[in-house]
């Protein structure tokens, strides 16, 4: 991580308060690392797939909460 990368990440973390969200710090860090590593790559589908997996890891559902037929099992 360069100084600029650290600056960008810090701004992202700070924006959680600005926009009033309680997104976990790890989620922001993980998504930023993913985007930073692939920022010059053209294959968006692969990156979106990886981002989706990061978000899935952070979805915190208690078993039985979800009655929807599209629900997925964590992990």
């Amino acid at each position, binding site marked *: 991580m360069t100084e600029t990368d650290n600056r960008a990440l810090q701004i992202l973390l700070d924006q959680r308060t600005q926009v009033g969200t309680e997104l976990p710090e790890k989620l922001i860090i993980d998504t930023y690392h993913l985007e*930073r590593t692939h920022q010059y790559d053209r294959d968006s589908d692969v990156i979106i797939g990886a981002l989706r997996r990061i978000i899935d890891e952070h979805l915190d559902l208690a078993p039985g909460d979800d009655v929807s037929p599209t629900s997925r099992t964590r992990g």
Partner: protein
Amino acid sequence: MIFRRLRLRNFGPYKGEHSLDLTTQPSRRLIIVFGDNMRGKTSLLNAFRWVLYGQALDRRSQPVDLIRLINTDAQHEHDWAISVSLTFEHEGSGYELLRQSIRRPIVATPRHSGDFEHSLQLRKDGAVLSQDTIEHYLNQMIPAQVSRFYLFDGELLQEYEQLLIDDGRQGEDIKIAIEHVLGVPALLNGRDHARTLLKQAQARQAKDLKHINALKSYGEQMEALQAEIRSHEADLGDLRGKLAATNSDIEELERALLETQGVEGDKAELDGHRATQKRLLDEERQLRDERVKVTRNAWKDLLQPRLRSHIRDLENAKRAHEAAIEQRGNVRARVDQLCSLLNTNRCPLCDHSISDGDRERFGAQRGALEGELHASDTHINEVGRINAALSRYEKLRTSGATEALQVNQRQLANIAVQLTRVESDIERTTERIAGYDTAEIASRRAKSKRLIEFRGKLSSDLASIEGTQRHKQRELDALSRLASAKTGSLAKRSTREVEICRALDAVYSSAIEKLRDELRRVVEGEATAVFKRLTTEQSYLGLRINSYYGLTIVDSQGRDVTVRSAGAEQVVALALIAALNRTVGKPAPVVMDTPLGRLDPKHRRNILRFISEMAEQVLLLVHEGESDPDRDLGELRNSVSREYELERISSAQSAVRPRLGGEA
């Protein structure tokens, strides 16, 4: 990233195999290549561009066709293989990148890139990496989008002036490149990816809601909106595709038109000459017609000498008759006196009676005088006759044909000279455009105009649909939020996913402008620090950055310096590039072609002193006119690892010779 060696084969003026050792020591970061004009400095810069990104650029930053890259002498010898290999180190590993293009076996004489087999190979620590990972590796080390800040042509540094124009299209392109090097795409992509995932999550949420009786209508409304949004997205994709294709067509046409700009100018000049020629021919025809008309009356002028003599005689006769007519009054008075005398028969003076003899004498006198009076009527008739004759002759005297013919002749001669001149102009201009299809060029110009109008219409349609799309998306978001608030424990997962994606979108969107502001502040500070080292005008306060990363010089009073010389532009551009390199903190070698050309000796010295600090490794391609080895480089000796010289072999061939630092 540190370069170690560059190998060329048939690249530009470098026929056959050539190699440059590029190893440098940490304390001696500079490599200098001296070469006169046409010896291949820009070809060396292009060799780096080509091996890394598969594209060489000309002086207008346009791609150079592969055929033009291959050495001309090699082409004549039917050696159609071109290759460049670059050995470098990055984060402790050794790499070798090899790009080559070889004529296809079935092609006798290649005409375009499709007539070659192309290959690219990247080895890491000796192991060949798979093809699909090469781009990713290079993007991690020195992405193509930021290459203009590492591999640059000093003559093109003035393009950064475009950044000062807030709505310039070229400036927008450079701004995007600057933000690429600064890492803004990570946030831009993050926002776009979060939005894509948000749409997917909302689709799942709508599907889930449809299975919950109390929220079924929300799900149906959301699905209806999503269907509309998808339809708009398809339209937008179609329009964007058309817009991109149109832009590409316009750029291609403009590029072709730029190459034939001179021909278009010559064609316009030729049309102008032809119009002049037509006008002159019309004028000549009119003058010839006038001459025919004038010549019809010219016989009158032939009579003039005799006519003048005859008129003179008539005028003399007229004067004699008029003198005689003048005498008539006196005669009439004498006749009246004699009549009175004869009637009264007495002398009016002494009143004596008149003798018969005198009376007879006076009667005779009266008869004679009355005869004279009668004769004077003839004078009057003669004057009338002469006047009538003079009037007739006057018409003959006023033809003016000779003068008119002389003027006509002069005008015709003048037109003949002009016609000769314009015919010569036509011949010269025609020669200049010979071989060019001017009708085709005119057709291209017309097509370009039509496409530009079409682009305007596409942009307008695009803006309209984007507006509708934003509106629909806001409706969907509002509905999704409303449904989320009501789901409770139902459809919790999809709703939570929507919330996370929405929050991610908000965080990334909000961070983009913050990061931009922060980066502009840092770049402005770094650029000012570098600028103050480079400029010879110490009273300047520094540089001020605008939203496009354009830099304006600020004088000692805090005012913008609006007019700056080409040299000052170059100094500001170098300050920007150095500031970007410092801000990025991602070490990559810098290769500069002719970076000192516009600078005076003091600025040149300042830049040469600074240049080795620009990057971990700096390769300077200079001609001795811009940088004299003895005069300018004396104090740099301790920073230079290697010096090379480009030697002329023939007009189509150069070779790289080492001056300092070992074999080439």
